[in-house]
């Protein structure tokens, strides 16, 4: 009944994209991601640890055949850095998809929309499939679409905050005005946040912390899978109007004397 969810030339069954950070162990990560039903997972680009003290690369645990890897530019504070990390990610040879992220402030991790726009311009020209993480700012979102990003990803609330969709008006308006898929990225804290997000009409959600640091990440992964299906279906089903007055659900006629 629902139209297939497509980003660029690729169709997805799941409207959920998940991150791979902050899990207590890789086994839990893989199980939680499978429970979530996500087909696309984000990964970060970091130095190899030559002393082998830190964990090995993610590719020892995630099969690029099973999941579409979406490298991010997390941790970059300038357009230049983000471009450098993007090129390194593509050079790995797995994908030309990219989650572009240019942070503007270390404390809030809020995106620098201006630098994101600069980086997007160059990376789109270089043929990257750019999914741009941005603020819930319609004007920046419109610009990112104009530049050719394959998806625009406004935040629900700050990364790791778990506050959910603080400003549904902005999210709805961005969805109304853009043609490309809108993926709400960051801020979801629990299943109902994901459900509310899809009910705004957006195309998908990207999350990491909400699943990774739940007491039971696998159960939360499944909860998110269900919540996103529920929110999407509810959006398509067309909800009842809400009103301050009551309306009976049983017949008011046919009562006895």
């Amino acid at each position, binding site marked *: 009944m629902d139209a297939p969810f497509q980003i660029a030339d690729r169709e997805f069954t799941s409207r959920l994209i998940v991150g791979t950070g902050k899990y207590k162990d890789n086994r839990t990560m893989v199980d939680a991601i499978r429970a979530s039903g996500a087909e696309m997972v984000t990964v970060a*680009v970091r130095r*190899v640890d*030559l002393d082998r003290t830190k964990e090995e*690369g*993610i590719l020892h645990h995630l099969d690029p055949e099973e999941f579409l*890897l979406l490298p991010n530019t997390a941790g970059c504070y300038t357009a230049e850095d983000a471009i450098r990390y993007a090129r390194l990610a593509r050079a790995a040879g797995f994908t030309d998809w990219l989650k572009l992220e240019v942070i503007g402030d270390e404390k809030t991790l809020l995106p620098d929309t201006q630098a994101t726009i600069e980086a997007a311009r160059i990376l789109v020209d270089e043929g990257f499939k750019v999914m741009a993480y941005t603020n819930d700012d319609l004007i920046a979102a419109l610009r990112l679409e104009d530049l050719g990003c394959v998806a625009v990803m406004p935040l629900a609330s700050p990364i790791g905050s778990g506050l959910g969709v603080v400003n549904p008006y902005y999210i709805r308006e961005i969805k109304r005005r853009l043609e490309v898929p809108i993926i709400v990225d960051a801020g979801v804290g629990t299943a109902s946040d994901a459900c509310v997000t899809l009910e705004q009409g957006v195309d998908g959600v990207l999350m*990491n912390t909400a699943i990774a640091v739940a007491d039971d990440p696998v159960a939360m992964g499944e909860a998110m899978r269900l919540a996103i299906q529920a929110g999407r279906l509810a959006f398509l089903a067309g909800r009842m109007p809400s009103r301050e007055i009551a309306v009976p659900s049983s017949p008011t006629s046919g009562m006895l004397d």
Partner: protein
Amino acid sequence: MTENATIEVRINGDDRGIPPGLSVSGLLEWLDLNPGLVVVELNREILDRDRYGEIVIAEKDTLELVHFVGGG
């Protein structure tokens, strides 16, 4: 490890002595890294995998060896 047995290069932010004359492939092997999973940036230039064999590391070269890790 004696002076004349090694050359000084900078790898992932640390100065290291490595055997002279190593190609990038040789370096990765020497470091016991899987070339298929590592991307190499030599003096700020990203290298294509098919050139790992021909490019030889020189004294004072700066290398970044990166790969994918978990992230959101």
